[in-house]
């Protein structure tokens, strides 16, 4: 008994006196909800942080005073990532804590320069949050986005992280970006935000990267193209499609809720043939035609029309990516890898070229459900 007690006391003193003490009170940390990287005009790396100011947040709740901001944007330049981070830290009395980083922004200048070597150490820091969403800032700098005073939230980063969900995309996290970069048969497709002249941000589709060339930005897809591209990669949860029907002199909008995709790889005469099947079920939310969807004939007509229109559209987008950018953002390579692994071994070396010459056929199958909700117009 006495020995145990002595051991316990010795253990306690040892553990306290070794100095192995990584206790940090919340008021010794500066919480960072957003971090950004960009290049300055003279080629230096610029790191910027959105730092939360808890004291002013608290006083704002009690007295309602709005004279003080609830956040502060800190930025500093450096030769590399660590240098820039040290320089930011030198401006702050509390230790930078990135465990709650919601957003990671990459400036367009850095993206076009190639960000592979820069972003790697940044995401590798142990306390770095891999679940932060990654965005490319078009025509701007990350610190400009961070400076925006948001409508709803306390910080712009919260708004940005809710943005993708609001428009029906699955969130694209830094972790997924890393996975895409490391995979052999897929190129990253990163969401893009841009600054408006009014001083607010807006979602602008996504950027196509070439990971073979230091993860360099090669081009943009607009919002609509992004939606279809994400549908093909099964990262879309909800979308509204509008198609005009010339025969009936009107248009029909369809909100799809349950979306599905299927990519089939076939080999016909030594040629790879890829079939993309997109299907979805949804509700008609607007109908300016004279068609009555509750009638089987009219419904068939609407569905056929929608299917054809979208089929053409998807085909066009795939063709555009194949010819203009030559980057396999749809993950066809991964599908080939999974469905015919033997062939992939020989294909993977030259996949970028193979991709641009791939024969892709598209099938879209849309179904309208809940027909009673919106049928024909009440005006005859």
């Amino acid at each position: 008994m006495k020995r145990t007690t002595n051991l316990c006391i010795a253990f306690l003193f040892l553990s306290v006196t070794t100095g192995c003490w990584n206790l940090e009170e919340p008021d010794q940390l500066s919480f960072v909800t957003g971090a950004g990287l960009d290049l300055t005009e003279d080629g230096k790396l610029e790191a910027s942080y959105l730092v939360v100011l808890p004291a002013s947040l608290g006083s704002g709740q009690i007295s309602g005073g709005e004279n003080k901001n609830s956040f502060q944007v800190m930025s500093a330049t450096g030769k590399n990532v660590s240098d820039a981070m040290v320089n930011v830290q030198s401006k702050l009395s509390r230790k930078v804590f990135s465990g709650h980083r919601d957003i990671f922004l990459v400036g367009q200048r850095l993206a076009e320069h190639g960000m592979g070597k820069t972003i790697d150490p940044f995401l590798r820091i142990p306390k770095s949050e891999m679940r932060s969403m990654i965005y490319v800032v078009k025509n701007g700098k990350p610190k400009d986005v961070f400076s925006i005073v948001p409508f709803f939230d306390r910080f712009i980063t919260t708004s940005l992280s809710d943005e993708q969900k609001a428009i029906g995309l699955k969130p694209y996290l830094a972790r997924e970006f890393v996975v895409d970069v490391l995979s052999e048969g897929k190129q990253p497709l990163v969401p893009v935000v841009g600054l408006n002249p009014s001083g607010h941000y807006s979602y602008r589709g996504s950027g196509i990267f070439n990971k073979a060339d230091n993860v360099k930005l090669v081009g943009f897809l607009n919002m609509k193209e992004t939606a279809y591209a994400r549908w093909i990669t099964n990262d879309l949860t909800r979308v509204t499609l509008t198609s005009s029907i010339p025969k009936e002199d009107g248009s029909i909008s369809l909100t799809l809720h349950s979306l599905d995709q299927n990519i089939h790889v076939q080999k016909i005469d030594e040629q790879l043939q890829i079939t993309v099947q997109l299907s979805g079920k949804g509700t008609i939310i607007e109908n300016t035609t004279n068609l009555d969807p509750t009638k089987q004939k009219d419904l068939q007509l609407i569905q056929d029309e929608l299917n054809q229109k979208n089929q053409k559209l998807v085909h066009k987008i795939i063709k555009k990516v194949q010819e203009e950018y030559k980057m396999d953002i749809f993950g066809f390579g991964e599908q080939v890898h999974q469905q015919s692994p033997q062939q992939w071994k020989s294909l993977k070396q030259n996949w970028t070229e193979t991709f641009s010459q791939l024969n892709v056929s598209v099938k879209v199958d849309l179904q309208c459900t809940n027909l009673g909700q919106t049928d024909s117009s009440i005006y005859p």
Partner: protein
Amino acid sequence: MGLFKKSYIKNKSKTNNPSKENISQNIDKNIIKNEQILKDIFQNCSDIMYRKITIHGQNKLLLIYVDGMVDVDIIISNILKPLMYEGLPQGLGSIDSVAQMCEEKHLSALQIKKLSDFGDITDHILKGNLAILADKETTALVVDVKKFETRSIDEPANEPSLRGSRESFTESLRTNTTMLRRIIVTPKLKIESTTIGNLTQTEIAVAYIEGTVSMTVLNKIRERLDRIQTDRILESGNIEEFIEETHFSPFPQLLNSERPDVVASSLLEGRVAILTNGSPSTLIAPMTFWAGLQAPDDYHQRFIFVSLVRWIRYVFTIISVLLPSLYIALTNFHPEMIPPVLMLNIAILRESAPFPTVIEVLMMEIVFEGLQEAGIRLPKQIGPLVSIVGALVIGEAAVNAGIISAPVVIIVSTAGIASFIIPRYSFGFPMRMLRFPLLLLSGIFGLFGIAIGIIVIIIHLIHLNPFGAPYLYPVTPFNKRDFKDVWIRWPRKLVKKGGDKA
């Protein structure tokens, strides 16, 4: 110091049993001499009554009893009247002594004993019997006419339940055994009696059901009770201390209950109950960890409800032990594990706090324990006052004054309330106590420290083996049939016979 200790022990052994010293002698033939001896023994005992009567002018009798412990009506009507009015029959014939005559003919009492040793006689007098000494005879007659004021049967104040019997044990052992007999009507219910304590002469009853009881447990209890050497047993807690397996465990190794239905149900499960005269709380052995988390009416309510409540109890038990230390570990070591918005809110509230979180939580815990202790000792009229003042002072004022941050108040009070959900009060103690070492560990090592603490607690629980029955049974060692009862209270129809819970 050593000298003092020695002399103390010496002194103690000398005064070990004063009542039996010098009085182990037999009754003399001369009644006047006997009276003198008894008066010497009971010197300065103003409550001892002597009553001399003479029958037929020749047979002198001496009645001795303790005032207030005997039934005066019975003495008058059943003992004094027959002796004084009817007197002794003429021609004694086969009867050769007054004692025999009284025993066989005159005294209408149930328990009569013939004794000749002064030590025995004094014992019986002190327990409320009437001693009758006759002149020229060497045996005294001891008649059981016990009657003293006892508390009536009340509701169990410390173990209320929604359903089931409202009876509670009283201080009188005989009443308590009666209550058990009334519930379990079988000759298999055995109640063994012993007396422990040289000065208090406390009666102890060991109750069990023959056939169901585990003999190893019963024998261990008998053996440990036999070994007790003490002057006093005032409460069943004294016995608990003497017979428990190890003193150095925060966990109680015997369950205590003041409810006859709980004790009866434990007996039917094969446990042993130890009833102590003078204490309404009865000890039940062996105890298991899970028994500490079961309420008296668990087996009276419907099973779905009870199963749910059991789960809530388990969750709250964990909360009561771990919540304060988890709070420290998460805010000070692993802030990334708390949802961002919550972490920011905590950071906002921490902004104006003057003390480190560990100190804050420790201070609040100590104040809370103090409030709890104060609440028990207070008279009923002042009780609510303390809780109001406590809630206001700690909950509101301390936060507003900027001494304590608000989350700490929430954490400590949640953990405090959670510890009250444990149905057995004595089982709540270890949970309250273990909070403090875990708090220190988490303040030094974070989650790692908590993990170490939990591992140590679990190792201790697995090692605990009171009365040869593992404390964590049926989880370790695993028993499938009984294990079910830990998580879900199965409907009795579905439980196979043999393990029938009462």
